[in-house]
């Protein structure tokens, strides 16, 4: 369970659980987890990162698969834990063994479970933001689109520069707010130009950033995590929307 989903949007977690159970998986959510450690890692603190990596590995290594509704967190575990722990032979080994069993949600559904039986309808013109880590570290591009194509009523309208960073970048967005502002307003301009009613993505970080900016611009475009749409769980307010 990624820290942002846990704190901001549990419904994404429940959507992921629902989808995994639809494919026949038995889902557990270990209590001994907090965050994957990226804030420490990308701010230069290797010691804290290594400690958190060991904690995550210990919490998850007894399972057949580790799935998260985030390309960024899975990229961290898969690509970066072995590097962070390379000076520690035992934990490096354990990190590598875990890495092979980690999957981002849509990639797991499509590539591992070969699941196509999406039972959801969502009548909207939707555009999709390709989050950087998922796209470039894990090659996630077609999987969410393949699943969305099975959602009844949904029309996908690709926007320009869907693969360009939204300006979130973890703590980057609070350290350099003005640069981040330019990047996220370029993103929202492309979303508006695509004439979409709704923007979807696979990472809460990007989605909080994009939703926050759309709200600041008084836009009525809705923001959901892709898992919520696939699991037919769009009855609650969209990200950044209030209870009406």
């Amino acid at each position: 369970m990624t820290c942002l989903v846990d704190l901001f949007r549990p419904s994404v977690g429940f959507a992921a659980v629902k989808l995994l159970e639809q494919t026949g998986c038995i889902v557990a959510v270990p209590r001994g987890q907090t965050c994957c450690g990226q804030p420490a890692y990308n701010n230069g603190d290797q010691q804290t990162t290594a400690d958190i990596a060991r904690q995550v590995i210990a919490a998850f290594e007894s399972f057949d698969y580790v799935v998260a509704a985030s390309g960024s967190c899975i990229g961290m575990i898969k690509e970066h834990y072995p590097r962070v722990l390379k000076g520690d032979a035992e934990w490096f080994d354990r990190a590598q063994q875990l890495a092979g069993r980690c999957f981002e949600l849509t990639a797991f559904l499509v590539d591992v479970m070969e699941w196509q039986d999406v039972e959801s309808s969502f009548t909207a013109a939707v555009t999709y933001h390709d989050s950087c880590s998922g796209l470039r570290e894990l090659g996630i591009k077609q999987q969410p689109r393949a699943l969305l194509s099975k959602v009844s009523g949904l029309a996908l309208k690709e926007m320009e520069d869907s693969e360009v960073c939204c300006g979130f970048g973890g703590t980057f967005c609070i350290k350099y707010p003005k640069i981040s502002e330019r990047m996220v307003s370029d993103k929202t301009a492309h979303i508006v130009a695509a004439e979409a009613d709704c923007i979807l993505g696979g990472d809460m970080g990007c989605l909080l950033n994009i939703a926050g900016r759309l709200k600041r611009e008084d836009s009525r475009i809705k923001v959901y995590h892709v898992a919520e749409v696939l699991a037919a769980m769009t009855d609650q307010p969209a990200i950044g929307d209030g209870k009406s």
Partner: protein
Amino acid sequence: MQRSTADFKRRAEAALQNVSLQQAMAKAKGGFVDKRRLAVNRLPEFEQIRAEAKSIKEHTLAHLDYYLDQFERKVLESGGQVHWARTAEEACSAVLAIIGQSGKQVLKGKSMVSEEIGLNAAMERAGHTVVETDLGEYIIQLAHEPPSHIIAPAVHKTRDQITELFHAEHEKYGLTGLVTETEDIVNEARQVLRSKFLSSDVGITGANFLIAETGSTVIVTNEGNGDLTQILPRKHIVTASIEKVVPSLDDMTVLLRLLGRSATGQEMSSYTTLSTGPKRTDDQDGPEEFHVVIVDNGRSEMLGNEFHDMLRCIRCGACLNHCPVYGAIGGHAYGWVYPGPMGSVLTPLMIGLENARDLPNACTLNGRCGEVCPMSIPLPDMLRTLRFKEHERKLSDARARWALKAWGLLARRPGLYQAVTGVMSTVLGRIGRRAGRFRALPLASGWTQVRDLPAPQGATFQRLWKGRR
């Protein structure tokens, strides 16, 4: 070159407010990206060439002393001279010694190393007149600005700005009309430069490659002015850094296939020119003296350390063109010679991490630079490695370090973490329920000054999950 890397944030924010800069950057961005994509798509074996190029550079760097020695020997055999410079100062002194007496008119082709060592300023201090001949360099010389891009030095200027600049600066040559079309701008610059080509004593160029087996220096250009710079004056001086050497002409051709495509989306640039020694007796033209100044300036320290791979860089500029941060703020905000991702790695290594603390951090680690780098340099990983060093040396912002430390303590104690996040989500969720987002929030101004913060749904997943099972 003067540096203002410590002032990054202020310069970046000023750049974001600069309307003409934003217009120029918006226009340039799409062109570079689309042209590169098309060029790469037209070459099915691009990835194969990329792998080959990487191994050529790795081999050369592993035997750098050998190939530099061979290069020197071949330059001497062809009648030229080689000058070794450990530092920027030594390099400038070497060039000044070759130029000789004060009061010379010196032509320059585009050379980033000459920017790095501050050569123009050194020559002007010594009483020489410097004329940049690359159109972009010529424009920024007139404007008294440093380059903002490693292959397109004046990319930050709009055409209107260039029209005004030429109008103000070319009046003294009797050119009083307003040139507004690109072709007319180029022609007017050509007209002014032509007289200078024929009246200069020394021509200085950079080098894209140094060929060890022949002692040749190679420049890649689109205007041909670099060629005139190295052929017409009596003395030709090449300034190049140590990692420019490649073993053979065959190796050069592999790298050339990547360079043009990655830089401008051209299969090859208009001119690829090799200089081998001074004019021979049966040559129709060429310089009487041929000098190569080979500059280290901190590079040999990178050999074998965690930044070794950076020495593979062929200065194509693709990482700049694909960097959303560079695209937003332009090159001048970075404060020194090399901007964008490659600059954010190189600058701290060359001028000291303590003088360029922002550069490795002003990046979202989105990975696009590493993806397009023709030499497969892991730029994002290197930027992160620089952050490790900042953290170790306590160079990062003290408040941010404390916040990180507090978060780290919490993140390593799942029970406590869940108690704290449980309270946070409940409180924030309740306050924010109606609006769904916060316009402003204490301690979160970095976030809320430019966007709203979506409110949490109310309870953490962990708490709800516990309730469900």
